[in-house]
């Protein structure tokens, strides 16, 4: 199954916490159960669940924080008899694939209809967060060079001074990380100069990591000076605690990923599932997302720090949310993925491919390390 092999290399969680579970108990006899599979760490998820539970004390909530690989494997495995009611995952292509295959249920509420069209698909799949993909650099970099503020400036720095930056730039390895692969696809779609950037990264022997947290730790250690394509929400909370790091949302264009929420078609508890998704789309939950988490709220009625509106105000047209549509299916195509990764490898290694051997070797999925 092509999807499964792809998923083996997909890992988003920057802190791959053990598959932990949060249980907000209501053990009354008439309690309404709700089971959520999510790729969202407890510190971010807990305030939302607590608030929902406060508003709906009759619901007995079980939240499983999974890695996206495991989440999608479980959903595919359970298929027609799912255990979960609601899925939350930033692995947009995979979430879209589940919805496109008809595993999602439509949410027919006023809130769902009013949700911005760019952040939803068919009233079935909703982007509830707004997380830019960012660059992070060490503050002491400023002593050596002007820190890059955009993709173009990063390319410029790499071409101008390859020697000082040799081995000092870090980014995702798209061959090993599903997130990195997704950003590579989107970058390549947006700009033809992306391939020049990949070649420059290759020439300067950029380091390749598989998680945002690994990159952040390398930057904090001083091993790396510049990190490219990090997940903004995680970077933000990390940078808040590490003053030696500075976060940059690229000015020319900033990819934005969204946690996609959907109710499963065969959800065992569809009513509570609907209530929860409807809650996530509502202003209270979105305000919590803006204030209590680093995720970024989507709701058009909410402004201020930590919202899509604020990001748009500062960056304007440079904001490029990943488009929610069938285009997301293309990178999941086995052959497409092989072709793209082969192109990436060629650009990064700066030499023509040796056909068959290298191709198969790069496609061999490598297991994500258990911890950064």
């Amino acid at each position: 199954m092509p999807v499964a092999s792809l998923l083996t290399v997909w890992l988003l969680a920057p802190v791959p916490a053990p598959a932990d579970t949060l249980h907000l108990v209501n053990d009354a006899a008439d309690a309404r159960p709700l089971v959520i599979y999510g790729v969202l760490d407890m510190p971010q998820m807990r305030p939302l669940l607590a608030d929902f539970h406060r508003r709906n004390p009759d619901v007995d909530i079980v939240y499983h924080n999974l890695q996206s690989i495991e989440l999608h494997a479980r959903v595919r495995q359970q298929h027609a008899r799912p255990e979960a009611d609601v899925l939350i995952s930033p692995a947009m292509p995979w979430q879209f694939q589940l919805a496109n295959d008809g595993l999602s249920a439509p949410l027919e509420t006023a809130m769902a209809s009013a949700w911005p069209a760019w952040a939803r698909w068919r009233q079935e799949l909703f982007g509830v967060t707004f997380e830019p993909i960012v660059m992070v650099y060490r503050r002491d970099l400023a002593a050596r060079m002007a820190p890059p503020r955009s993709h173009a400036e990063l390319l410029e720095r790499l071409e101008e001074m390859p020697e000082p930056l040799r081995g000092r730039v870090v980014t995702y390895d798209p061959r090993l990380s599903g997130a990195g692969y997704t950003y590579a696809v989107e970058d390549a779609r947006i700009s033809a100069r992306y391939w020049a950037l990949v070649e420059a990264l290759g020439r300067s022997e950029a380091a390749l990591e598989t998680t945002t947290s690994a990159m952040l730790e390398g930057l904090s250690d001083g091993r790396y000076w510049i990190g490219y394509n990090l997940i903004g929400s995680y970077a933000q909370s990390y940078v808040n605690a590490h003053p030696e790091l500075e976060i940059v949302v690229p000015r020319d264009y900033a990819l934005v990923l969204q946690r996609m929420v959907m109710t499963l078609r065969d959800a065992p508890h569809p009513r509570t599932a609907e209530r929860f998704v409807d809650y996530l789309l509502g202003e209270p939950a979105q305000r919590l997302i803006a204030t209590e988490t680093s995720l970024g709220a989507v709701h058009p009625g909410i402004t201020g720090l930590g919202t899509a509106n604020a990001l748009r105000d500062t960056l304007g047209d440079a904001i490029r949310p990943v488009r929610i549509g069938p285009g997301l299916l293309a990178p999941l195509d086995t052959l497409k993925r092989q072709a793209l990764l082969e192109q990436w490898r060629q650009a990064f290694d700066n030499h023509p491919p040796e056909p068959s051997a290298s191709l198969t070797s790069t496609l061999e999925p490598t297991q994500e390390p258990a911890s950064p």
Partner: protein
Amino acid sequence: MSLAPPIRLSHLSLYRRLAIWLLLPLALLAAIMLVEAWLTSRQAADRAYDRLLDAASLSIAEQVRWQQSGLWLNLPASALEMLATDAEERVFYALYDVHGHYVTGNRPLPALPAGDGEPRMSYADVTSDDMALRLGVLRARLEGWDRSDRFEVRVAQTLEGREALASQLFRASLVNVLVIAGLAMIIVLLSARIALEPLTRLRRAIRERDPRTLSPLTLEMPRELAELREALNELLARMRRVRANQERFIGDASHQLRTPLAGLSARAELALRQSDPARWREALVTMDDTANRASRLAGQLLSLTRLNNPEAALDRERVDLVALARGCVRNTFSRLHRRGVDLGIEAAPRTVVVDATPWQLEEALINLVDNASVYGATLVTVRIETAPPRLIVEDNGPGIPESERLLALRPFHRGQESGSGTGLGLAIVDSVARAHGARLTLHDAYPEHSERPGLCIVITFCDA
């Protein structure tokens, strides 16, 4: 228990008939138009959206290459994007090689039978995993120097967009059809009302007439109703003639009855002035004769009235003409013999049966015989013939000139002023003949005697 009266079509008003027979086909027509509009909308929507399948599969097919040992596809995201319209359809694609092996895709899609000829693209509605899909299959061929393998690109989308477009198109047609049907209905109802308006005028004109007025209607009418008006006018004309006849008959009858009564009165007055019993006796004899004539006249008037009464029930039975004639002759023979008339009968010794009312036939026969004797015949022969049954009375009297024979059948017409006939005899016979559907003919009995040709009256019955 109150049951609705059964609907009887013959009782429906003309307006309703017209309305029903025009509106039913109209409704049928509208229904057909709606069905047709729905099918057309579906087809138009399918055509429009099949283009997307077409474009997407072409754009995918362009990216198919031969690489290493198999088909290779660099799937363009735009191909998938173009399949999803504003309706956000689910989209599926798959690439199959020449042997029908799945190469890549996001869902296995069924094959479609290749049509005749070379249609590169074929479409079908399919169901996959309980999902209704429109499938497009593109049969293509690698275009390279070394290989030209065939392959199939199959793309599918869910039907939301098509259905939305189809129902949008259909709604537009629906409005059109309904507006047209509504207008047509109004026009039909109005024109039915207008077309029937002259009928209302005619009815009103008839109802408003004085019941004694028999003058013709002079309304301006459309052709169909003009015919009805003419028929009515003809009926009125006949009624006028009948009434005129009746009035004349009544006048004649009063006149005829008044004459003998006046005679009686004068004779009695004259006799009373005298005292000779012999004169009285003479007067009484004359009065008796006059009274007899008056009585006979009244009897004949009564018969004629009875005969002409169309409501008289006709009790027909099988009547033997021979027996009937013999009876009559027997009854009248002595009376005529006293007047010096020789009455005879000629009939075959067997029965001649007709359907008839016996008293009417007797009346006719007696009148014929009496008539002959009254107008001066001395020899009267009653003859019965068979096949067809005929009743013939022949006399050797003065006869009736040919020009007066038709007139002679009218009441109170007397061939000659002399004689003591009432002028009703032949009229009665004519009425009887007509009541029996028999033919009455008059001709000379002895045409060789031009002075006194006699009269032969034949009543020819239909074959029983």
